[in-house]
């Protein structure tokens, strides 16, 4: 298992984390995406290969009247987007990631009126593919509502 310091493998380091402009710009990944804005996603933090996004509870995003629980589809979007953030945090905006596949296990329903936080980790990347794990929780990261595994394609420019 790769530790934090070598979360990305060698061929990604050639044009990797140095491109990342840092937290002050990372939030654009959330703020400039119409669907992320529409759902109210809020940038929390990022570091190379990792990202965290918060999705505050909102009545119009509930799955079923009377439950006050966010629709599972909201988690899907949040997890997908957080994975995208984690990749760009490692490889820069020009990584241009696109989701190839995404698997989500719903461990339990979120608590009523609970906001959800998602944290994703790009634990491996080749020139063309990034592999990620993500977890989403309402109260504590130790008790996730959902865990996910994803693969993204990267459309990186050739190294000069």
């Amino acid at each position, binding site marked *: 298992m790769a530790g934090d310091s070598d979360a990305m493998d060698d061929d990604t380091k050639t044009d990797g984390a140095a491109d990342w402009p840092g937290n002050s710009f990372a939030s654009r990944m959330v703020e400039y995406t119409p669907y*992320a804005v529409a759902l109210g996603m809020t940038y929390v933090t990022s570091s190379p290969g990792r990202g965290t996004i918060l999705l505050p509870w909102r009545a119009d*995003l509930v799955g079923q009247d009377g439950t006050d629980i966010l629709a599972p589809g909201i988690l899907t979007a949040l997890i997908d*987007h957080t994975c995208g953030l984690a990749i760009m945090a490692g490889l820069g905006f020009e990584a241009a990631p696109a*989701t190839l596949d*995404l*698997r989500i296990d719903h461990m339990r329903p979120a608590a009523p009126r609970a906001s959800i936080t998602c944290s994703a980790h790009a634990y491996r990347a080749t020139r063309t593919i990034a592999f990620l794990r993500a977890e989403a929780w309402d109260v504590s990261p130790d008790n996730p509502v959902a865990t996910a595994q994803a693969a993204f394609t990267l459309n990186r420019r050739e190294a000069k």
Partner: protein
Amino acid sequence: MSGAIDLNAIIATSPFCRFLNVETKVDERGVLAILPIRDQLVGNVMLPALHGGAVASFLEIACLLQLAHETGTSAPARAIDISVEYLRPARRENTFARARIRRMGKRVAVVHAEAWQSDENKPVCLLQSHLRLPSGFAAKE
């Protein structure tokens, strides 16, 4: 049981379905779900393409609608897991989906769904889901 349930009533009781403006109709092939295009659904402004999360959640809804249609119950099933494959970018246009129940157990249903845009033979996204059926539900056969 087929067709006994009003799918529009199910959509009407889901705030998130209303948020997405999901529409539905039933034809001889089953439930057709429609996701009308809106700028809010865009996930990549450069291409532009719909957000993968929007398309996937639309497919989850298509699964629930097909399940309600075939079982005749409006009690919501709950996703245990989903697996989504993105085949091509979903362009900035209306998206359609159909779901198929591959197995209906007493507690769990296996449902597959696919989404397409202009050409049904070129799906943009596939989804497989295990859904926990509402308690007290038993396959009526």
